[in-house]
């Protein structure tokens, strides 16, 4: 879906760009040519680009992407959405619509089929370090290309009639007729393909490589071959970047040299180290029944990365938990003790936040050494959950609703260390209450209960008398909770969520939790739930957009609707980071669907009963 929009929008702005007037001119010349068809199966486009290619985008199976995007249901659903209405009102839309109509007429089919035929064989774009670029478009079959050319014939003829300068110089290069415009534009037709380059030299080299059957080309280089293998045979498109060249960019160097702070270092520190050493980066796209899957591979040995985030043997993260109203979940494999021991390399600059953290840990876990005595007790399998809250009307519903968060950790020695954690938690709550008291703010009450094998401690604010129980202050979103069950310790910002997490953990334990092998990070976002939550908080969001972006109320409302429509196209997304074949690999999977205006407009019922 998104791809189509992008194509259409780009075509709109493309019409005005100077560089593509060259393209139009190039196409002009095409009309006067006949198509050369090759006798043998043609060379892959990547084998017609030089080995020093820095960036390459190879869409080998365009139909895999185009089919679902251009399916009638999708197109219809999109046409009904408000975003389309906006595009239709745009000034350049009429021109675009006419062009598409013309194309349809000439090709004799609807535009979706026409598009599929034209690019169905594949599209490849290759960029050199000198910014020279070559684009190769392969049609599904010779006839399609022919048809397309003929359909443009009349149109272009009229355009270039008054402008002989747009006719280019022709020459035969390695057996292929090439038309060039100065040194800065050239195109050629070979083997069902249209090749366009912004440099005559590059085009000549491409044709030379073709003549030499791709010897010493980019497509035959070790890096590309490895990237292709890593991407897998089903990939519909691959993007390749030569990292050694890319890293010489001073801005990127500066960004990579910057010191990390502890939290980002914990999440992605190990990846950044790998990224600094990678020879190449490949990002591939595949469309499956589950949605779109994007795979990113960096060619750097995972064995040289800091060890705190790499699972041992076939260990890995535990699957994400699932609770009602869940917005997102992250499951991590992080050896906190190893992380802390590596802090000098990972984040050499001491932030006040880190020092404060260590001070607090020293107070809460008095007498225990922070890395040997505390962090070492925490098992590397850590999970975080965020969920929409369900409020008890008798306790009170805040005017502004904030989701609840929970951290789920396993202890190596739950019996002994569990009590230590409880003590630390009580100290923390007490300290928070005391500090608030110093500022004249209300503090917490603590409730502790044991139910079979579950111990729950909840800290909560007393509701003030004469308070409107339907519109409490934001602080009533927070009821810090500590729950212990079995090996697990759960720290949550609300007791409701804590209880649900306890249920989920127990269910998982009885079913037997199996870790995902070699996976260090797994995240899930329920975009559908996120959209629902946003819809129920329309007013604060609109107000924030009014002052944060200077919109009028109507504009902010419309902008919010647009944003929600885009988000509504995604049902959920998940991200996995793992070690595969000695490299770090990331998978991003997005389940898409057609947006539904009804889901966005109708505000969900607020609060909800338990």
């Amino acid at each position: 879906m998104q791809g189509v929009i992008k194509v259409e929008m780009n075509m709109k702005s493309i019409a005005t760009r100077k560089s593509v007037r060259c393209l139009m001119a190039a196409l002009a010349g095409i009309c006067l040519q006949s198509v050369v068809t090759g006798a043998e199966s043609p060379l892959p486009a990547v084998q017609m680009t030089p080995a020093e290619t820095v960036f390459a985008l190879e869409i080998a199976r365009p139909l895999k992407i185009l089919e679902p995007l251009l399916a009638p249901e999708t197109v219809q659903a999109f046409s009904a959405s408000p975003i389309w209405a906006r595009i239709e009102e745009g000034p350049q839309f009429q021109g675009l619509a006419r062009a598409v109509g013309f194309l349809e007429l000439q090709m004799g089919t609807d535009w979706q089929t026409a598009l599929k035929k034209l690019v169905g064989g594949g599209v490849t774009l290759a960029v050199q370090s000198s910014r020279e670029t070559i684009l190769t478009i392969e049609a599904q079959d010779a006839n399609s290309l022919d048809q397309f050319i003929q359909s443009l014939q009349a149109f272009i003829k009229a355009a270039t009639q008054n402008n002989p300068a747009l006719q280019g110089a022709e020459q035969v290069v390695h057996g292929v007729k090439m038309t060039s415009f100065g040194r800065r534009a050239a195109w050629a037709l070979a083997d069902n393909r249209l090749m366009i380059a912004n440099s005559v030299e590059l085009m000549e080299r491409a044709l030379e490589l073709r003549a030499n059957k791709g010897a010493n080309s980019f497509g035959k280089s070790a890096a590309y071959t490895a990237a292709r293998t890593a991407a897998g045979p089903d990939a519909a498109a691959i993007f390749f970047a030569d990292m050694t060249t890319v890293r010489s960019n001073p801005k990127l160097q500066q960004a990579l040299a910057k010191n990390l702070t502890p939290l980002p270092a914990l999440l992605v520190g190990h990846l950044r180290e790998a990224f600094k050493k990678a020879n190449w980066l490949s990002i591939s796209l595949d469309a499956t029944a589950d949605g779109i899957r994007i795979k990113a591979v960096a060619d750097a040995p995972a064995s040289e990365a800091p060890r705190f985030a790499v699972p041992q043997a076939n260990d890995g993260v535990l699957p994400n938990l699932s609770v009602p109203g869940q917005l997102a979940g992250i499951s991590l494999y992080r050896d906190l003790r190893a992380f802390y021991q590596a802090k000098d390399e990972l984040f050499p600059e001491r932030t006040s936040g880190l020092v404060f953290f260590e001070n607090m840990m020293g107070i809460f876990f008095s007498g225990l050494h922070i890395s040997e005595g505390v962090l070492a007790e925490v098992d590397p399998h850590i999970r975080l959950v965020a969920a929409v809250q369900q409020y008890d009307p008798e306790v009170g519903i805040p005017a502004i609703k904030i989701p609840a968060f929970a951290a789920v950790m396993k202890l190596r020695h739950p019996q002994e260390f569990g009590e230590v954690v409880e003590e630390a938690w009580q100290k923390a709550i007490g300290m928070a209450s005391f500090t608030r008291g110093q500022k004249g703010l209300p503090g917490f009450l603590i409730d502790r209960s044991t139910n079979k094998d579950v111990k729950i401690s909840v800290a909560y604010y007393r509701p003030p008398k004469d308070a409107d129980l339907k519109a409490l202050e934001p602080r009533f979103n927070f009821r810090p909770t500590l729950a212990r069950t079995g090996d697990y310790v759960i720290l949550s910002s609300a007791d409701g969520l804590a209880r649900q997490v306890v249920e989920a953990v127990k269910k998982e334990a009885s079913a037997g939790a199996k870790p995902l092998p070699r996976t260090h990070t797994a995240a899930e976002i329920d975009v559908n739930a996120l959209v629902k939550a946003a819809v129920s908080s329309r007013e604060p969001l609109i107000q924030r957009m009014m002052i944060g972006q200077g919109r009028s109320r109507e504009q902010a409302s419309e902008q919010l609707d647009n944003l929600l429509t885009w988000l509504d196209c995604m049902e959920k997304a998940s991200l996995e980071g793992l070690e595969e074949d000695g490299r770090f690999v990331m998978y991003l999977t997005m389940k898409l669907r057609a947006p539904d205006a009804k889901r966005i407009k109708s505000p969900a019922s607020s609060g909800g009963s338990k």
Partner: protein
Amino acid sequence: MNRREFFKKTLGASTLLAFGCAAPNFLLRSAAAASPSRRRETILVVIQLSGGNDGLNTVIPYENDIYHRRRPTLRITPDKVLKLGNGLGLHPDMQGFQRLYDEGHLAIVQGVGYPHNNRNHDGAMRDWHTAKPKDPTATTGWIGQALDFYTEKNFSTPGGVFVGHIEPPFALQSKKAIVPKVQTAGDWAPVYHGKTADTFAGLLEASSQNESQDEFLDEIRQVTIQTLRASKRIESIAGLSAPDAAVYPQYRLAQTLRTIAQLIRAELGVRIFFAELGGGGIGGFDTHAGQAANHGALLRELSESVTSFAHDLEKDKLLECVLLMTFSEFGRTLTENGRHGTNHGSAAPLFLVGGALKKRLMGVHPRLDDLEEDAPKPHTDFRRVYATALENWLGIESRLVLGESFAPLEGLLGSV
């Protein structure tokens, strides 16, 4: 190529962009000794160390038994200490400072503090900022107050600048002067590019000579002309592609000091710069637990950043016009607590870095057998250090700023 030649080459000899703006007629006391050559203005750079720096592990009395006994795990052993003489040594991570000390560009003022320090982050820091510990209702900071006097005579140039990313500290709170907050030199400039700036400035100059004698509007014109000049100076200095990736380390404080060096070179008329290490508030120096690694890392950042700053300025003979001063809201206790850290104390040493220092060590190390609530007692009031900076360096009557008379430290700086 010296700086004069450099300016001539890059900016041309246009009168519009003449070298430097008018030297502010800054000295309120007439005690300044005028010299025939054009004197550069003196500049004070203040660095706040937030959180309470542990002086005992910074300037270490390594020959004192009590120190070793009371800090079983945190003590720095004599073989690791960077010896300075007099039984004192620097923390091993401060090699840069040792170099500066040997060069005569570093001075240590010992036992600095004030009586009845309440040892509370907010309260103590506020006392250092306002220089009025007995007056909790003070509405200005000491630098802000000094800048208010400065502004009387030089309202078109900001006398002080805060370089950093945290909230500007209360020390800079003023009644009248507007104190810029800057993160990079580019925040100040550029305003207009190339020809537009020249055209504009030229026309403004012409109009102030030819047209109606409206002093009010004229003042505004003058400020605009000066702004255009200043902007162009900064642009040329900041645009100098520095081979100094090697000179300044990657630390944030180092980048801050680099910006300060650029602004000093641009001769904007700024007299006081303020920077901060530790993050403000309950800052990184508040090492209640696990002090060894954290304190070392911070001192390393301080030492290397300041040393690279000093050497950078020295290259252009600017170090003799600059005095850098560090301070922290309190020192720390002698005895280490059970968490390999220390608690809030009182007295601590203070560093001064510059090219015009006449002495290297001021005062004796406070006695370790005569403590107040487990911390060494201060013998030098911090306001004397402020007075030294104000009177002997910047030429401002310190009594007006501090509210009382405090004797400057003798023999530390030559007369201005």
